Protein backbone atom coordinates (compact mmCIF):
# COMPACT_ATOMS: atom_id res chain seq x y z
CA UNK A 1 0.00 0.00 0.00
CA UNK A 2 2.74 2.42 1.06
CA UNK A 3 4.71 1.24 -1.92
CA UNK A 4 1.77 2.06 -4.29
CA UNK A 5 1.18 5.49 -2.70
CA UNK A 6 4.85 6.33 -3.00
CA UNK A 7 4.78 5.35 -6.66
CA UNK A 8 1.64 7.43 -7.26
CA UNK A 9 3.25 10.48 -5.58
CA UNK A 10 6.34 10.01 -7.66
CA UNK A 11 4.33 9.79 -10.86
CA UNK A 12 2.43 12.95 -9.84
CA UNK A 13 5.75 14.69 -9.27
CA UNK A 14 6.96 13.60 -12.67
CA UNK A 15 3.77 14.86 -14.34
CA UNK A 16 4.23 18.21 -12.59
CA UNK A 17 7.82 18.24 -13.66
CA UNK A 18 6.75 17.69 -17.27
CA UNK A 19 4.33 20.61 -17.03
CA UNK A 20 7.16 22.76 -15.71
CA UNK A 21 9.40 21.70 -18.55
CA UNK A 22 6.72 22.51 -21.10
CA UNK A 23 6.20 25.91 -19.47
CA UNK A 24 9.93 26.67 -19.52
CA UNK A 25 10.17 25.60 -23.16
CA UNK A 26 7.29 27.93 -24.11
CA UNK A 27 8.75 30.83 -22.12
CA UNK A 28 12.18 30.21 -23.62
CA UNK A 29 10.94 30.19 -27.20
CA UNK A 30 8.51 33.09 -26.69
CA UNK A 31 11.01 35.31 -24.92
CA UNK A 32 13.80 34.26 -27.28
CA UNK A 33 11.81 35.33 -30.35
CA UNK A 34 10.71 38.52 -28.59
CA UNK A 35 14.29 39.51 -27.76
CA UNK A 36 15.52 38.72 -31.28
CA UNK A 37 12.61 40.61 -32.83
CA UNK A 38 13.25 43.68 -30.72
CA UNK A 39 17.06 43.71 -30.80
CA UNK A 40 17.83 43.35 -34.51
CA UNK A 41 16.10 46.60 -35.64
CA UNK A 42 17.87 48.43 -32.79
CA UNK A 43 21.23 47.17 -34.01
CA UNK A 44 20.40 48.25 -37.57
CA UNK A 45 19.04 51.72 -36.59
CA UNK A 46 21.05 52.64 -33.46
CA UNK A 47 20.49 56.39 -33.70
CA UNK A 48 16.73 56.02 -33.33
CA UNK A 49 17.23 53.78 -30.33
CA UNK A 50 19.66 56.27 -28.74
CA UNK A 51 17.00 58.98 -29.16
CA UNK A 52 14.41 56.69 -27.53
CA UNK A 53 16.68 56.18 -24.53
CA UNK A 54 17.29 59.91 -24.07
CA UNK A 55 13.53 60.56 -24.21
CA UNK A 56 13.04 58.49 -21.04
CA UNK A 57 15.01 61.22 -19.18
CA UNK A 58 16.57 58.64 -16.87
CA UNK A 59 20.16 58.54 -18.10
CA UNK A 60 22.84 61.09 -18.91
CA UNK A 61 24.54 61.36 -22.31
CA UNK A 62 27.34 58.83 -21.66
CA UNK A 63 25.23 56.20 -19.93
CA UNK A 64 22.53 56.51 -22.60
CA UNK A 65 25.13 55.87 -25.30
CA UNK A 66 26.53 52.88 -23.43
CA UNK A 67 23.04 51.40 -23.12
CA UNK A 68 22.27 52.08 -26.80
CA UNK A 69 25.45 50.27 -27.81
CA UNK A 70 25.24 47.27 -25.50
CA UNK A 71 21.55 46.59 -24.87
CA UNK A 72 20.58 45.45 -28.40
CA UNK A 73 23.50 43.02 -28.48
CA UNK A 74 22.70 41.76 -25.00
CA UNK A 75 19.12 41.22 -26.23
CA UNK A 76 20.45 39.31 -29.23
CA UNK A 77 22.65 37.07 -27.04
CA UNK A 78 19.84 36.47 -24.57
CA UNK A 79 17.42 35.62 -27.39
CA UNK A 80 19.85 33.19 -29.02
CA UNK A 81 20.68 31.54 -25.68
CA UNK A 82 16.99 31.08 -24.85
CA UNK A 83 16.20 29.56 -28.23
CA UNK A 84 19.27 27.31 -28.33
CA UNK A 85 18.84 26.22 -24.71
CA UNK A 86 22.31 27.34 -23.65
CA UNK A 87 22.88 29.20 -20.37
CA UNK A 88 19.10 29.12 -19.88
CA UNK A 89 19.14 30.12 -16.23
CA UNK A 90 21.48 33.06 -16.88
CA UNK A 91 19.50 34.14 -19.94
CA UNK A 92 16.20 33.94 -18.04
CA UNK A 93 17.70 35.93 -15.17
CA UNK A 94 18.98 38.55 -17.63
CA UNK A 95 15.51 38.67 -19.26
CA UNK A 96 13.86 39.12 -15.86
CA UNK A 97 16.22 41.93 -14.88
CA UNK A 98 15.92 43.70 -18.25
CA UNK A 99 12.13 43.45 -18.26
CA UNK A 100 11.96 44.59 -14.63
CA UNK A 101 14.05 47.67 -15.40
CA UNK A 102 11.96 48.35 -18.51
CA UNK A 103 8.72 48.08 -16.52
CA UNK A 104 10.14 50.46 -13.91
CA UNK A 105 11.21 52.91 -16.63
CA UNK A 106 7.76 52.85 -18.23
CA UNK A 107 6.03 53.32 -14.86
CA UNK A 108 8.36 56.27 -14.20
CA UNK A 109 7.49 57.82 -17.58
CA UNK A 110 3.77 57.40 -16.91
CA UNK A 111 4.21 58.94 -13.47
CA UNK A 112 5.94 62.00 -14.98
CA UNK A 113 3.42 62.24 -17.82
CA UNK A 114 5.99 62.18 -20.63
CA UNK A 115 4.37 61.61 -24.03
CA UNK A 116 7.13 59.47 -25.60
CA UNK A 117 7.44 56.38 -27.78
CA UNK A 118 8.15 53.21 -25.80
CA UNK A 119 11.06 52.13 -28.03
CA UNK A 120 9.91 48.54 -27.63
CA UNK A 121 10.45 47.69 -31.26
CA UNK A 122 12.26 50.16 -33.49
CA UNK A 123 10.27 51.49 -36.39
CA UNK A 124 7.04 51.77 -34.41
CA UNK A 125 7.38 55.27 -33.05
CA UNK A 126 3.60 55.50 -32.71
CA UNK A 127 3.68 52.92 -29.91
CA UNK A 128 3.59 55.39 -27.02
CA UNK A 129 4.22 54.50 -23.40
CA UNK A 130 0.80 53.78 -21.93
CA UNK A 131 -0.82 51.64 -19.26
CA UNK A 132 -1.35 49.05 -21.99
CA UNK A 133 2.35 48.90 -22.88
CA UNK A 134 3.25 48.79 -19.16
CA UNK A 135 0.83 45.92 -18.56
CA UNK A 136 2.33 44.06 -21.52
CA UNK A 137 5.85 44.41 -20.11
CA UNK A 138 4.73 43.43 -16.62
CA UNK A 139 3.05 40.27 -17.95
CA UNK A 140 6.18 39.25 -19.86
CA UNK A 141 8.25 40.07 -16.77
CA UNK A 142 6.08 37.79 -14.62
CA UNK A 143 6.34 34.99 -17.21
CA UNK A 144 10.14 35.36 -17.36
CA UNK A 145 10.61 35.46 -13.59
CA UNK A 146 8.36 32.40 -13.13
CA UNK A 147 10.37 30.65 -15.81
CA UNK A 148 13.57 31.47 -13.95
CA UNK A 149 12.20 30.14 -10.66
CA UNK A 150 10.98 26.95 -12.34
CA UNK A 151 14.39 26.39 -13.97
CA UNK A 152 16.07 26.75 -10.59
CA UNK A 153 13.72 24.19 -9.02
CA UNK A 154 13.04 21.97 -12.01
CA UNK A 155 16.12 19.74 -12.08
CA UNK A 156 15.92 18.81 -8.43
CA UNK A 157 12.20 17.96 -8.82
CA UNK A 158 12.99 15.66 -11.72
CA UNK A 159 15.95 14.13 -9.91
CA UNK A 160 13.87 13.51 -6.78
CA UNK A 161 11.16 11.84 -8.89
CA UNK A 162 13.70 9.56 -10.48
CA UNK A 163 15.29 8.75 -7.15
CA UNK A 164 11.97 7.80 -5.55
CA UNK A 165 10.76 5.74 -8.53
CA UNK A 166 13.91 3.72 -9.14
CA UNK A 167 13.96 1.65 -5.91
CA UNK A 168 10.35 0.56 -6.49
CA UNK A 169 11.22 -0.88 -9.85
CA UNK A 170 9.01 1.61 -11.74
CA UNK A 171 9.33 1.72 -15.50
CA UNK A 172 9.29 5.50 -15.89
CA UNK A 173 12.44 7.04 -17.12
CA UNK A 174 13.35 10.69 -17.37
CA UNK A 175 15.61 12.40 -19.75
CA UNK A 176 17.75 15.32 -18.77
CA UNK A 177 15.79 18.57 -18.66
Amino acid at each position, binding site marked *: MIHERSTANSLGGMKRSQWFRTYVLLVRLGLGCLFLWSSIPKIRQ*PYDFLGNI*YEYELFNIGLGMLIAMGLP*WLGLFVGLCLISGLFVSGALLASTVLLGIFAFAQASVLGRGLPIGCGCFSGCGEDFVSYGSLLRVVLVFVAASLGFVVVLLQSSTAAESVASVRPTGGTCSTSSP
Partner: protein
Amino acid sequence: MTSQELRHSPYLVILHVKTSADQKDYKHYELFVGTKDGQAKLYDPPNPPGLVPFHELAQRWAGVGLIVSASPVDANAFLAPGRRRFMTYVAIVVAVILVLHYGRRRWIAYWAGMSRRRRFVLALSQCAGLTVLGLLAGFIYHFANDEGFLAHGNATTSVVRAHVGSLLPHVNKEEVAELLNTETVFIDARYARDFKAGHLAGAINVPVNASDDERGKVLNGVSKDSHLVIYCQSAGCKFAEEVTKKLMADGFSDISIFKGGWGEWSADNDT
Protein backbone atom coordinates in the same frame (compact mmCIF):
# COMPACT_ATOMS: atom_id res chain seq x y z
CA MET B 1 17.22 49.43 -45.18
CA THR B 2 20.41 50.81 -43.63
CA SER B 3 22.83 53.35 -45.08
CA GLN B 4 25.28 50.46 -45.52
CA GLU B 5 22.76 48.90 -47.89
CA LEU B 6 21.86 52.22 -49.51
CA ARG B 7 25.41 52.91 -50.61
CA HIS B 8 25.21 49.91 -52.99
CA SER B 9 21.92 51.01 -54.55
CA PRO B 10 22.05 51.46 -58.33
CA TYR B 11 18.56 53.06 -58.20
CA LEU B 12 17.23 56.46 -57.26
CA VAL B 13 15.71 56.26 -53.78
CA ILE B 14 13.37 58.75 -52.11
CA LEU B 15 14.49 58.85 -48.47
CA HIS B 16 12.30 59.69 -45.47
CA VAL B 17 14.54 62.00 -43.43
CA LYS B 18 14.64 64.69 -40.75
CA THR B 19 15.13 68.23 -42.07
CA SER B 20 18.26 68.42 -39.93
CA ALA B 21 19.94 65.85 -37.69
CA ASP B 22 19.04 67.75 -34.50
CA GLN B 23 15.30 67.44 -35.18
CA LYS B 24 13.30 64.65 -33.55
CA ASP B 25 10.74 63.90 -36.23
CA TYR B 26 11.04 62.59 -39.77
CA LYS B 27 9.08 65.17 -41.77
CA HIS B 28 11.02 65.52 -44.98
CA TYR B 29 11.97 63.64 -48.17
CA GLU B 30 15.19 63.77 -50.17
CA LEU B 31 16.23 61.98 -53.31
CA PHE B 32 19.26 59.67 -53.16
CA VAL B 33 20.92 59.92 -56.55
CA GLY B 34 23.88 57.62 -55.99
CA THR B 35 27.23 57.18 -54.28
CA LYS B 36 30.17 59.42 -55.16
CA ASP B 37 33.59 59.44 -53.44
CA GLY B 38 32.20 57.19 -50.71
CA GLN B 39 29.46 59.72 -49.89
CA ALA B 40 25.75 59.85 -50.59
CA LYS B 41 24.70 62.21 -53.37
CA LEU B 42 21.39 63.75 -52.26
CA TYR B 43 19.02 66.04 -54.09
CA ASP B 44 16.75 68.28 -52.05
CA PRO B 45 15.04 70.76 -54.41
CA PRO B 46 15.42 73.68 -54.89
CA ASN B 47 19.00 73.19 -53.60
CA PRO B 48 21.50 71.63 -56.01
CA PRO B 49 22.58 68.00 -55.35
CA GLY B 50 25.13 67.71 -52.54
CA LEU B 51 27.40 65.08 -51.05
CA VAL B 52 26.68 63.83 -47.51
CA PRO B 53 28.83 61.27 -45.62
CA PHE B 54 26.85 58.10 -44.98
CA HIS B 55 27.40 58.27 -41.23
CA GLU B 56 25.74 61.70 -41.20
CA LEU B 57 22.87 60.44 -43.31
CA ALA B 58 22.39 57.54 -40.86
CA GLN B 59 21.64 60.08 -38.11
CA ARG B 60 18.71 61.68 -39.92
CA TRP B 61 17.28 58.92 -42.08
CA ALA B 62 14.47 56.70 -40.81
CA GLY B 63 15.75 53.71 -42.77
CA VAL B 64 12.76 53.92 -45.10
CA GLY B 65 13.20 54.50 -48.81
CA LEU B 66 11.07 54.40 -51.95
CA ILE B 67 12.99 53.03 -54.94
CA VAL B 68 12.36 54.83 -58.22
CA SER B 69 12.99 52.78 -61.33
CA ALA B 70 11.57 52.41 -64.82
CA SER B 71 12.52 48.72 -64.87
CA PRO B 72 11.70 45.96 -62.35
CA VAL B 73 13.76 46.38 -59.17
CA ASP B 74 16.31 43.76 -58.16
CA ALA B 75 16.51 44.68 -54.47
CA ASN B 76 18.80 41.79 -53.58
CA ALA B 77 21.55 43.20 -55.77
CA PHE B 78 22.15 46.12 -53.42
CA LEU B 79 20.66 44.85 -50.17
CA ALA B 80 22.87 41.77 -50.14
CA PRO B 81 26.27 43.37 -49.25
CA GLY B 82 24.89 45.24 -46.22
CA ARG B 83 22.90 42.26 -45.05
CA ARG B 84 25.90 40.00 -45.56
CA ARG B 85 27.96 42.29 -43.36
CA PHE B 86 25.30 42.32 -40.65
CA MET B 87 24.79 38.56 -40.89
CA THR B 88 28.55 38.08 -40.47
CA TYR B 89 28.28 39.62 -37.01
CA VAL B 90 25.27 37.45 -36.20
CA ALA B 91 27.00 34.35 -37.59
CA ILE B 92 29.96 34.94 -35.26
CA VAL B 93 27.58 35.08 -32.32
CA VAL B 94 25.74 31.93 -33.45
CA ALA B 95 29.05 30.11 -34.01
CA VAL B 96 30.18 30.90 -30.47
CA ILE B 97 26.86 29.65 -29.11
CA LEU B 98 27.03 26.46 -31.19
CA VAL B 99 30.54 25.73 -29.96
CA LEU B 100 29.37 26.16 -26.39
CA HIS B 101 26.33 24.03 -27.20
CA TYR B 102 28.56 20.97 -27.65
CA GLY B 103 29.15 20.89 -23.94
CA ARG B 104 25.43 21.00 -23.21
CA ARG B 105 24.94 17.40 -22.04
CA ARG B 106 27.80 17.57 -19.59
CA TRP B 107 26.50 20.92 -18.49
CA ILE B 108 23.00 19.56 -17.76
CA ALA B 109 24.40 16.68 -15.71
CA TYR B 110 26.51 19.14 -13.75
CA TRP B 111 23.50 21.44 -13.26
CA ALA B 112 21.25 18.61 -11.96
CA GLY B 113 23.71 17.75 -9.21
CA MET B 114 24.08 21.29 -7.90
CA SER B 115 22.40 22.81 -4.88
CA ARG B 116 19.84 25.56 -5.50
CA ARG B 117 22.10 28.20 -4.00
CA ARG B 118 24.99 27.26 -6.24
CA ARG B 119 22.63 27.24 -9.23
CA PHE B 120 21.54 30.76 -8.40
CA VAL B 121 25.14 31.93 -8.14
CA LEU B 122 25.87 30.24 -11.44
CA ALA B 123 22.84 31.92 -13.06
CA LEU B 124 24.10 35.27 -11.77
CA SER B 125 27.54 34.68 -13.26
CA GLN B 126 26.01 33.62 -16.60
CA CYS B 127 23.87 36.76 -16.58
CA ALA B 128 26.94 38.91 -15.86
CA GLY B 129 28.88 37.11 -18.59
CA LEU B 130 26.12 37.76 -21.13
CA THR B 131 26.04 41.43 -20.15
CA VAL B 132 29.79 41.79 -20.62
CA LEU B 133 29.56 39.98 -23.97
CA GLY B 134 26.72 42.28 -25.07
CA LEU B 135 28.68 45.42 -24.17
CA LEU B 136 31.81 44.09 -25.85
CA ALA B 137 29.95 43.19 -29.05
CA GLY B 138 28.30 46.64 -29.04
CA PHE B 139 31.66 48.38 -28.67
CA ILE B 140 33.22 46.35 -31.47
CA TYR B 141 30.23 46.88 -33.78
CA HIS B 142 30.09 50.63 -33.20
CA PHE B 143 33.85 50.96 -33.57
CA ALA B 144 34.21 48.83 -36.71
CA ASN B 145 31.06 50.02 -38.48
CA ASP B 146 31.32 53.27 -40.44
CA GLU B 147 27.91 54.38 -39.12
CA GLY B 148 28.72 53.41 -35.53
CA PHE B 149 28.75 55.79 -32.55
CA LEU B 150 32.50 55.32 -32.03
CA ALA B 151 33.60 55.51 -35.67
CA HIS B 152 33.36 59.31 -35.75
CA GLY B 153 33.97 61.77 -32.94
CA ASN B 154 30.74 63.72 -33.44
CA ALA B 155 28.50 60.81 -34.44
CA THR B 156 25.98 61.24 -31.65
CA THR B 157 26.17 65.04 -31.29
CA SER B 158 23.08 65.60 -33.39
CA VAL B 159 21.03 63.06 -31.39
CA VAL B 160 22.12 64.78 -28.19
CA ARG B 161 21.12 68.16 -29.66
CA ALA B 162 17.76 66.76 -30.75
CA HIS B 163 17.05 65.59 -27.20
CA VAL B 164 18.62 68.48 -25.38
CA GLY B 165 15.37 69.13 -23.50
CA SER B 166 15.47 65.61 -22.07
CA LEU B 167 19.14 65.70 -21.14
CA LEU B 168 19.47 69.11 -19.47
CA PRO B 169 18.80 69.47 -15.74
CA HIS B 170 15.25 70.43 -14.82
CA VAL B 171 14.13 72.75 -12.04
CA ASN B 172 10.76 72.65 -10.34
CA LYS B 173 8.56 75.45 -9.02
CA GLU B 174 10.15 75.45 -5.55
CA GLU B 175 13.65 75.68 -7.01
CA VAL B 176 12.53 78.51 -9.30
CA ALA B 177 11.25 80.40 -6.25
CA GLU B 178 14.67 80.02 -4.61
CA LEU B 179 16.53 81.09 -7.76
CA LEU B 180 14.42 84.20 -8.42
CA ASN B 181 16.48 86.51 -6.22
CA THR B 182 19.87 85.18 -7.30
CA GLU B 183 22.21 85.75 -10.25
CA THR B 184 20.28 83.23 -12.30
CA VAL B 185 18.89 84.62 -15.56
CA PHE B 186 15.36 83.55 -16.49
CA ILE B 187 14.60 83.28 -20.19
CA ASP B 188 11.01 83.29 -21.40
CA ALA B 189 10.82 81.39 -24.70
CA ARG B 190 7.19 82.30 -25.50
CA TYR B 191 5.98 84.81 -28.10
CA ALA B 192 6.24 88.51 -27.19
CA ARG B 193 2.48 88.94 -26.72
CA ASP B 194 2.37 86.08 -24.18
CA PHE B 195 5.38 87.55 -22.39
CA LYS B 196 3.64 90.90 -22.13
CA ALA B 197 0.55 89.25 -20.65
CA GLY B 198 2.62 87.91 -17.76
CA HIS B 199 6.06 86.48 -16.96
CA LEU B 200 8.45 85.62 -14.14
CA ALA B 201 9.89 88.66 -12.36
CA GLY B 202 13.09 89.81 -14.09
CA ALA B 203 12.77 87.33 -16.96
CA ILE B 204 14.14 88.19 -20.41
CA ASN B 205 12.02 87.41 -23.43
CA VAL B 206 13.81 85.42 -26.14
CA PRO B 207 10.90 84.28 -28.32
CA VAL B 208 11.31 81.06 -30.22
CA ASN B 209 10.87 82.99 -33.49
CA ALA B 210 13.53 85.62 -32.67
CA SER B 211 16.27 86.03 -35.27
CA ASP B 212 19.96 85.60 -34.41
CA ASP B 213 20.38 89.40 -34.35
CA GLU B 214 17.38 89.95 -32.09
CA ARG B 215 18.60 87.23 -29.72
CA GLY B 216 22.10 88.75 -29.69
CA LYS B 217 20.72 92.20 -28.78
CA VAL B 218 18.50 90.92 -25.97
CA LEU B 219 21.29 88.84 -24.41
CA ASN B 220 24.01 91.42 -24.97
CA GLY B 221 24.72 91.98 -21.28
CA VAL B 222 24.39 88.36 -20.18
CA SER B 223 27.64 86.52 -19.46
CA LYS B 224 28.16 83.18 -21.22
CA ASP B 225 28.94 81.65 -17.79
CA SER B 226 25.57 82.68 -16.34
CA HIS B 227 23.14 80.08 -15.12
CA LEU B 228 20.09 80.28 -17.36
CA VAL B 229 16.65 78.90 -16.56
CA ILE B 230 14.50 78.64 -19.67
CA TYR B 231 10.77 78.21 -19.57
CA CYS B 232 7.76 78.15 -21.85
CA GLN B 233 4.01 78.03 -21.18
CA SER B 234 3.69 74.41 -20.02
CA ALA B 235 5.35 70.97 -20.10
CA GLY B 236 3.84 70.30 -23.52
CA CYS B 237 5.41 73.43 -25.06
CA LYS B 238 8.66 72.76 -26.93
CA PHE B 239 9.80 76.39 -27.34
CA ALA B 240 12.12 76.18 -24.33
CA GLU B 241 13.98 73.30 -25.98
CA GLU B 242 14.22 75.15 -29.31
CA VAL B 243 15.58 78.30 -27.65
CA THR B 244 17.97 76.16 -25.57
CA LYS B 245 19.50 74.69 -28.72
CA LYS B 246 20.09 78.20 -30.09
CA LEU B 247 21.58 79.44 -26.82
CA MET B 248 23.89 76.45 -26.62
CA ALA B 249 25.05 77.24 -30.14
CA ASP B 250 25.65 80.84 -28.93
CA GLY B 251 28.01 79.51 -26.24
CA PHE B 252 25.82 79.27 -23.13
CA SER B 253 26.35 75.97 -21.33
CA ASP B 254 24.92 76.27 -17.80
CA ILE B 255 21.27 75.85 -18.71
CA SER B 256 18.32 74.38 -16.83
CA ILE B 257 14.74 74.00 -17.97
CA PHE B 258 11.62 74.80 -15.96
CA LYS B 259 9.21 72.39 -17.59
CA GLY B 260 6.08 73.50 -15.78
CA GLY B 261 6.65 76.97 -17.21
CA TRP B 262 4.50 80.04 -16.78
CA GLY B 263 1.33 77.96 -16.56
CA GLU B 264 2.49 76.09 -13.44
CA TRP B 265 4.04 79.19 -11.88
CA SER B 266 1.07 81.49 -12.41
CA ALA B 267 -1.38 78.91 -11.08
CA ASP B 268 -0.16 79.58 -7.51
CA ASN B 269 1.72 82.86 -7.73
CA ASP B 270 0.73 86.41 -8.52
CA THR B 271 3.73 87.82 -10.36
